[in-house]
Every structure is written in C-alpha cells, then in structure tokens.
C-alpha cells in the first residue's frame, strides 16, 4: 500500500489516516500503533524540514509480511543524509545537561527493530521494520 503526500507538516493528518487504514485492514494489534505513528511522523517531518523548498511529494509505503511490518518513505529530491547515523543524545543526564531536540530519531530507532537507509542521486529511501510480536 503506497501513497504520495505533499511535502508539508499539514500533510501529517492524512499520513496518519493512511496508516490507520492500513493498520485496520491488516488487523495489527493496537499496541503497535503508537510506534508506527511516531516513526512515520519523525521521518516524514525530517524530510520536510531539511528540504522545504522542494515541491516533490514524499512516497509513503506500508507493507506486512507475516509478523514483519515495513514502513518505507521515499524522497525523490533529497540531499543525501543517513538518518540511521544521527548522533545519540544522552538521556541519563540532569535537566541542566539535557539538550532539547534530537530525540526523535533516537526514539524511532528504539521503537523499531531495524532502520535502513539507501540513497541514489537525489533519491533517498528510509525503511523501518517493526516486528509484530
């Protein structure tokens, strides 16, 4: 199941609706829904945030193979940036030492079982895997 979305934060509501339709059709246990929404939003908003001038839509794909849920986001006009290598923020430090921001991709990595990045010219694809167990 695939759909293209405008490169805009306002498209998020439609992205979530698309995900909910998929999760309902596939009868995915509700305990996985939050993680799917969080990961989808995090990657989608990163693609929007770091290339707001582009008019290219972003392709979102959702697929299920047995107990494996695959989320793919394809950007056809991206400067190569491997989100899977984003630096980790320390989460065991005092509020004075905490840095606001930067937590999203780190939490996405923890909520997903795998996160993969491919780049080919201006095209980037991020694939997230969550095991439905």
């Amino acid at each position, binding site marked *: 199941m695939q759909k293209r979305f405008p490169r805009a*934060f*306002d498209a*998020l*509501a439609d992205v*979530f609706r698309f995900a909910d339709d998929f999760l309902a059709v596939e009868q995915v246990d509700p305990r996985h829904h*939050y993680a799917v*929404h*969080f990961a989808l*939003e*995090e990657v989608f*908003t990163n693609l929007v945030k770091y290339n707001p001038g582009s008019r290219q839509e972003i392709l979102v794909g959702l697929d299920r193979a047995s107990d494996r849920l695959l989320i793919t986001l394809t950007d056809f006009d991206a400067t190569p940036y491997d989100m899977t290598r984003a630096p980790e923020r320390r*989460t*065991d*430090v*005092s*509020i*004075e030492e*905490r*840095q*606001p*921001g930067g*937590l*999203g991709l780190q*939490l996405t990595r*923890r*909520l997903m079982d795998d996160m993969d990045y491919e780049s080919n010219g201006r095209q980037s694809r991020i694939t997230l895997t969550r095991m439905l167990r």
Partner: protein
Amino acid sequence: MFDIKVAEQGRVVLAGRLDASQEARVNAVFDGLQSPCVIDMKDLEYISSLGLGILVRTQKRLKARTGGGLRLVNVNRHINELFRLAGFHQIFEIEAHTP
C-alpha cells in the same frame, strides 16, 4: 484533533494528538509559562518528538529561572513508555493515569 488550554491555577491541559503541525500553538502557551506548573495529559492520546522537545526546553528554562519545573500528570500508558525511553522520569515529576 488537538487542543491546549490554560485552566485554573495555570494548569495546562492538553488533549488529542500533539504532532509537528501544532508547533506554533504549543509554543505560544509554553513560552508564556513563567512559574512551575502542572501539565494535565489525561486526554492527550499522542505526543511526537516535537512535543518532547518543547517539554525539555521549557523545563530547562523554568528550572534555571525558578528552581521548580513542570509536573506531568495523568500520563497514558503509551506516552509514559515513550517518556521512559526518553529518560524523562529523571528530569520531570511524572504521574501516570490510573483508569
């Protein structure tokens, strides 16, 4: 659908889904907080990293300015798990929602 209100005694009430499209509305309220206060999440279903960042930024500012901070109350199970992964229990006072 998302809603944010400042109720009695400065209590901030969040409801619905706080995603990145709500940044301006949430910043407008949190940037105006000048003293320690309660953030009521009883009807908050979802919070993304945008919301987490605003909470951390506000907590840092209030702690530095007043020594007190935000108390996050009525936190649902999913959000509480996210807070745990983000290490929030070390930097916020958090009360889970008990249905």
